[in-house]
């Protein structure tokens, strides 16, 4: 275990930023999101949850895939260059690390998405353990220990010290690059903090959410449940849940005419939107109930069926906090639980 005084963190950030792009939680207009480090950035490692998850470090909200040019009748295609420079995502929480594992299942399965893979190959994750998880958190339900994040480097912020523990080759290489700023430490303070945090976790209302009844051959039973018809009612179809979600990966592919060629780009999309599945001969999910059901069935039934039981939710609780109609996955799971109990 290594350590660095909190007051020396700006020096650490600068050192990393000398050779790599450094993404970390930055406060802009009172919202904290992952952004590129600059000397005058208002870094906020204390923020438990960034508004958006850091998934855009690997799966950007919008990215150009290639540019088409046309001269007379001839088309030429210039693919966008792949990520070829190392970068560091600093301060990512355990739930969001798991979120990236979920995205890996999608983008690194055959055929591999090379844009995503290049970013994964060049990205170094420095995770930060949570000290004060909040009421909306339920990572434990998905087997995540927020006090012991697994990434290239795990860190803990205890009092005025950041503790640093490299876990992978990439993490060791990064550690070597900044070793002048780190000194040896024992892990007693970290252990103490972990125990304190775990005590908080146990008291939080959603942490012990049970997913019993969602695994196994339950597709038809869940899909046909009359509960969806009740649950979806307040949904405004705004798509906020999908945009703040660390695991939502639906995307659109669109064209932007620059006046000097056509950029084909992909951008996040949302299964909550009415035109998501619209095509010339109709729409196979033409009610909001169907779209609402699709999102949760995908996260809790369809995705696990294809990925050895791994749920496409990590319990970060962003949807719990941000849904303007107070809908969320916890409500869905609990509604089904209650129904099961009443039988």
């Amino acid at each position, binding site marked *: 275990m290594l350590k660095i005084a909190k007051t020396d963190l700006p020096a650490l950030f600068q050192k990393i930023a000398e050779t790599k792009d450094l993404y970390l939680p930055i406060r802009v207009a009172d919202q904290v999101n992952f952004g590129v480090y600059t000397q005058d950035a208002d870094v906020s490692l204390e923020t438990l949850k960034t508004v958006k998850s850091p998934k855009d470090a690997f799966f950007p909200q919008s990215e150009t895939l290639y540019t088409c040019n046309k001269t007379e009748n001839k088309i030429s295609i210039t693919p966008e260059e792949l990520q070829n420079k190392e970068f560091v995502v600093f301060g990512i929480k355990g739930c969001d690390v798991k979120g990236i594992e979920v995205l890996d299942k999608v983008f690194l399965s055959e055929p591999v998405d090379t844009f995503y893979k290049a970013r994964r190959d060049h990205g170094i994750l420095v995770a930060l353990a949570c000290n004060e998880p909040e009421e909306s958190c339920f990572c434990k339900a998905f087997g995540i220990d927020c006090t012991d994040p697994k990434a290239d480097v795990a860190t803990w912020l205890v009092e005025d010290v950041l503790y640093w523990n490299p876990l992978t080759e990439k993490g060791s290489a990064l550690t070597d690059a900044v070793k002048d700023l780190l000194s040896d430490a024992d892990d007693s303070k970290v252990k103490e903090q972990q125990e304190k945090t775990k005590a908080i976790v146990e008291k939080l209302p959603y942490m012990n959410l049970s997913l019993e009844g969602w695994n196994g051959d339950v597709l038809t039973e869940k899909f046909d449940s009359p509960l969806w018809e009740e649950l979806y009612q307040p949904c405004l179809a705004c798509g906020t849940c999908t945009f703040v979600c660390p695991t939502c990966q639906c995307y659109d592919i669109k064209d932007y005419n620059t006046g000097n060629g056509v950029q084909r780009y992909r951008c996040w999309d949302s299964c909550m939107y009415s035109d998501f599945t619209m095509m010339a001969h109709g729409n*196979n999910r033409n009610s909001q109930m169907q779209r609402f059901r699709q999102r949760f069935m995908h996260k809790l039934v369809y995705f696990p069926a294809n990925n050895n039981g791994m749920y496409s939710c990590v319990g970060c609780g962003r949807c719990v906090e941000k849904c303007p109609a107070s809908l969320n996955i916890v409500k869905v799971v609990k509604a089904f639980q209650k129904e099961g109990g009443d039988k």
Partner: protein
Amino acid sequence: MCDCNCHEHYTEDTLIPKIGIITEITQQTPDVKTFRVNAPEGGKLFEHLPGQCAMVSVPGVGEAMFSITSSPTNKEYQEFSIKKCGVLTDYLHTMEVGEELTVRGPYGNNFPVETELKGKNLLFIAGGIGLAPLRSVINYVIDNRANYGTVDILYGSRSMDDLVYLKEIKEVWAKEEGINVHLTIDREQEGWDGHVGFVPSFLKELGFENNKTALVCGPPIMIKFVLAALIEMGFSKEQVYTTLELRMKCGVGKCGRCNIGSKYVCKDGPVFRCDEIDELPAEY
């Protein structure tokens, strides 16, 4: 050649298309054209299997999934039969021979021509533009005739003007030994002395024996009633193949649009055996 190294990080991603050139356009019906596409240097853009699809695009206009209607046994080109029914297809219909578009693929699975269908008596049932994906299989079967039993082709459309590939049907398919073609149109029309009526009822009238494997493609409502008719005629769902069509963007099972249950139609489909469809949530 330039000596720069600026291209070495470029990708061969599956989302990056190839350039294709339109080498022939055939007006099939008032709103369907068949586009023959080649690589700009000649030859085919890629190899495919019967039933597979590809993403065809006009940069700046749009990109959409179309079934490849030509048979893989055709070594010279690929063909797409496209109905004019939206922004991209409207534009495609204005294009001329010599113009370029982009194509990526092939995507999806295929009709099991080399496995389950081998040695079987085949019954093709199509409605309207639904004959496009089946044409790939039909021509594959004709080119490998010894591998299959009897072939019946039941094809219907709204009117005789809406029957696609009519020339090929009459001059090639109907003349093949062991192939029976049964055509129908929805309503009486001057100049038409063939059968009149919807495909499912014509199917029942023809009353095929259930010693066949059926391949069905057409509008969802037709598929629904054809399947019911086949079951009534003693076919099991394991004897019937069809294709599903949902909105697609990526073509590789990642963008989420064509997700239905744990399947992605672009990757796990578009071809499904009817008993497999039964296991999917009813959302297609």
